[in-house]
């Protein structure tokens, strides 16, 4: 009996290690790469033994990169700031628009309600490239191309459906009687929304906000096409390291590490909310 149990435990542990290796090894490798020079990265066979260098990071922060074919300006810090501005403003606006909308979809039956909600979700199905070409034309016409406002607007395609559907599931989980009770107590409709509905859906709102922040942060294609150099986020900014003198793998790796860090920290901090938001709210929504 005892040997059987420990045998099973060994198998389970082995399976766990394989899964972890599969998912974590690329991240680990990129992390190592960020402390190597391009020469070290490109040697064959690759090795995990090397003398670490901070060259890549200093280059990113100082904004200048020395290469064999001369020096290169790097706008990485500017890109990082852009990412922060774009993602947080997008999420903020999506919350202001999406939470009341989610409440309406959860609480009231209105004509075409389900259709509208589904249409909003379907924005997530369409390949972004499909809408991008006409969007570029429109934006140039109305002067929104290469502006933060324009980008934040387009980012709503990512954030709004996510917030709407996750938060709606949370609102649906709150018994309407709790709100009715508060109204009957003598409180206005608006007060009921802010004092009962919002606080009770707070975990869902937090989860939805985090998820949409991460999705906005990781977006590549909208920014690539709609923004020029000084509005580009880190995801696009990393392209600059594909230079005429070759691909700067070390710098790219360092840039990836730096750009992943904020979302990773956020995700770790709010892990519980995220899992709940993904499994509970989203499934029910």
């Amino acid at each position, binding site marked *: 009996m005892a040997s059987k149990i420990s045998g099973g435990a060994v198998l389970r542990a082995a399976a766990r290690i394989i899964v972890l290796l599969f998912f974590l090894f690329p991240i680990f490798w990129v992390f190592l790469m960020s402390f190597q020079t391009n020469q070290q990265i490109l040697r064959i066979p690759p090795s995990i033994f090397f003398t670490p260098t901070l060259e890549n990071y200093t280059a990113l922060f100082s904004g200048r990169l020395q290469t064999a074919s001369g020096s290169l300006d790097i706008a990485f810090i500017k890109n990082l700031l852009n990412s922060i501005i774009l993602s947080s403003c997008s999420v903020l606006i999506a919350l202001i628009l999406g939470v009341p909308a989610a409440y309406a979809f959860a609480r009231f039956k209105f004509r075409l309600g389900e259709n509208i909600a589904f249409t909003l979700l379907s924005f997530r199905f369409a390949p972004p490239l499909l809408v991008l070409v006409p969007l570029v034309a429109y934006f140039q016409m109305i002067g929104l191309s290469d502006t933060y406002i324009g980008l934040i607007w387009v980012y709503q395609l990512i954030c709004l459906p996510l917030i709407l559907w996750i938060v709606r599931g949370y609102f649906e989980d709150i*018994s309407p*009687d*709790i709100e*009715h*009770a*508060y*109204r*009957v*107590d*003598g*409180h*206005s*409709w608006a007060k009921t929304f802010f004092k*009962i509905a919002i*606080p*009770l859906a707070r975990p869902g709102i937090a989860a939805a906000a985090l998820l949409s922040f991460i999705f906005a942060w990781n977006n590549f294609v909208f920014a690539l096409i709609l923004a020029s150099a000084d509005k580009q986020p880190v995801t696009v900014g990393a392209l600059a390291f594909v230079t005429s003198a070759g691909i700067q793998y070390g710098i790219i790796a360092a840039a990836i590490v730096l750009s992943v860090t904020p979302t990773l920290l956020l995700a770790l901090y709010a892990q519980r909310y995220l899992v709940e938001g993904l499994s509970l709210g989203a499934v029910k929504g």
Partner: protein
Amino acid sequence: MTRLEIRNLSKSFGSLRLFHDVGFAVAAGETLALAGPSGGGKTILLRLIAGIMEPDEGSILIDGKDVGGVGPEARDVGVAFQNFALYPHMTAFENIASPLRARGTETARVKERVTEVAALLKIDHVLENQPRELSNGQKQRTALARALIRRPKVLLLDDPLRNVDAKLRYEMRLELPRLLAVADCAAIYVTQDYREAMGLGDLVGILRAGRFEQIAPPAEIYTRPRSVEIARLFGDPTINLLPCRPERTAEGLQVEIFGRPMPLPLHFAAAEGRDCLIGVRPEHVSVGLQNGPGSLPFELNAVTPLNVRAVLFLRDAAGTELLATCPEDDALAFGRGHHRVFVTIDTSRALLFDRENGQTLALPAAAQPLAA
């Protein structure tokens, strides 16, 4: 004085007509118990009165004023919901204080009133707890305290004892009349338990198929039900129902049940010659071990105690079943059953229903007022 009046109220959901042209009035200090099968629209009616839903037609008057179009916050009603509906992120104190806070009552007065109501409901020791830390009974009392605290004109209780255990249900059923008397409001109490309806209602209303089949004092509902369905809803064990046809004979009006003619009081003359169901309450069937005049032989098949009474399960030679009850102590004489007993049926207190439509054909004389 009439506190709450409902006139010609109708409500449908799509093609489903919940009720049609419903009307009643409840005075201050009076309780109307709404009983009846689930899905009868009882809860919807409460929601209409509270202002959570609007009726299709008809009006709701509180103290003579039509409250149509007035939001729930301005109607001065208190509601205790079946699922308690406590605010999970507030303490019991804040839950109870909520109606006072909405009116901007000063802090000292809020504290005084909450403490007072909490003491009345025996939850003063858990006021600082969050709802999730309360037992079901305490949650239910907190919900009641919240409904009562600002002395509303109308109090709506939606099956408030449904989700508490049997012991607490008994305790609260006996305590509620005193609380309602103190509150001095027009109260509507929705329940599926006939004991709660009879124990708490000054009037009992039976909502069935979209209308009030009967509104009457509890004793009247029990002794003079308007239909066989109402007779079946009230009473445990359920009333015995036997097919029969009353006939006039030389000895007067008679009915043949269990193969034996039995006399019927004259007020049943209207039922003569019609296909009927005779309804006999189990407590009107007496069972003994000795044969006597007018008694019928039965086989006693089982004795199942029911709280302070015992249910006797009887079958005659043809296999027809009959339930009788007697005080628990009297049942000791019968042992485990499975022997012959002799049964007398009090037909003077029987009910006769039309076999086709279930309507009561003739009612016994109104219950004698109890000597004080």
